[in-house]
């Protein structure tokens, strides 16, 4: 059964995925790839919600509900961010973070 796998293994998987997302967000310069790293981070948190729901409170559904809300927020965020990227591309003809510094100083 799934209960034979220790809960720590699931937590280690999600923590490693979170770490990969944070590193990717810092390392990459392409805005779309940075958004993908954010999606990785959100999914790591989602796995944590479902695991704690399953292992600690298997008769309630709070974890599933919050995972659904996170999925909805990720969809809304991706749509707005992609609209922003298209607008940035029209103005600068590329979408790399170093070139977008008009509002920085």
């Amino acid at each position: 059964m799934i209960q034979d796998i220790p809960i720590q293994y699931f937590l280690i998987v999600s923590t490693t995925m979170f770490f990969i997302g944070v590193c990717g967000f810092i390392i990459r310069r392409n805005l779309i790839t940075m958004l993908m790293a954010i999606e990785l981070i959100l999914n790591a948190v989602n796995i944590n919600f479902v695991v704690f729901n399953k292992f600690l409170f298997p008769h309630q559904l709070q974890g599933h509900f919050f995972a659904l809300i996170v999925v909805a927020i990720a969809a809304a965020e991706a749509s707005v961010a992609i609209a922003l990227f298209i607008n940035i591309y029209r103005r600068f003809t590329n979408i790399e973070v170093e070139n977008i510094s008009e509002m920085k100083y």
Partner: protein
Amino acid sequence: MAFLFYLLSGIALLSALMVVLSKSPINSVIYLIVCFLSIAGHYILLNAQFLAVVHIIVYTGAIMVVFLFVIMLLNLNKTNEPHKSVLTKFMAVISGGMLFLVLIAAAKGVNEMIVAKEFDANIGLVANLGKVLYTDYMIPFEASSVLFLSAMIGAVMLGKKDKK
């Protein structure tokens, strides 16, 4: 069951690593789709069937298609993306790794948690989830529709050409 867990975890972590490391954005999107499919497999293992289906539909069906569409529309599939300096990469790994260590150390202390042994296999189906969604969490569920409406209006407003 344990074998499935290890297989899915390996696929998820490897493809997540390849999302960050691969040069071209199209390859990143493909690896991200593989990663999301294996996460959906995790959800099925964890008895969250409806969440797995919603995850596949929303992520690989909607968000990733939009990503691919934008990459191909804007012709961004250049592999000569100039990378950041080695110092920046090193600092990224160090700072992310410290967070990683803290979280792993926190996860090691879960031994004392009381893990519930018995469970209902039908808990993750849509009937039970819908019952919770429309009674206990009515207000957040309806508020997310307002969020979607504002996101839709915002995307249309930002995406249209501004006339000079």
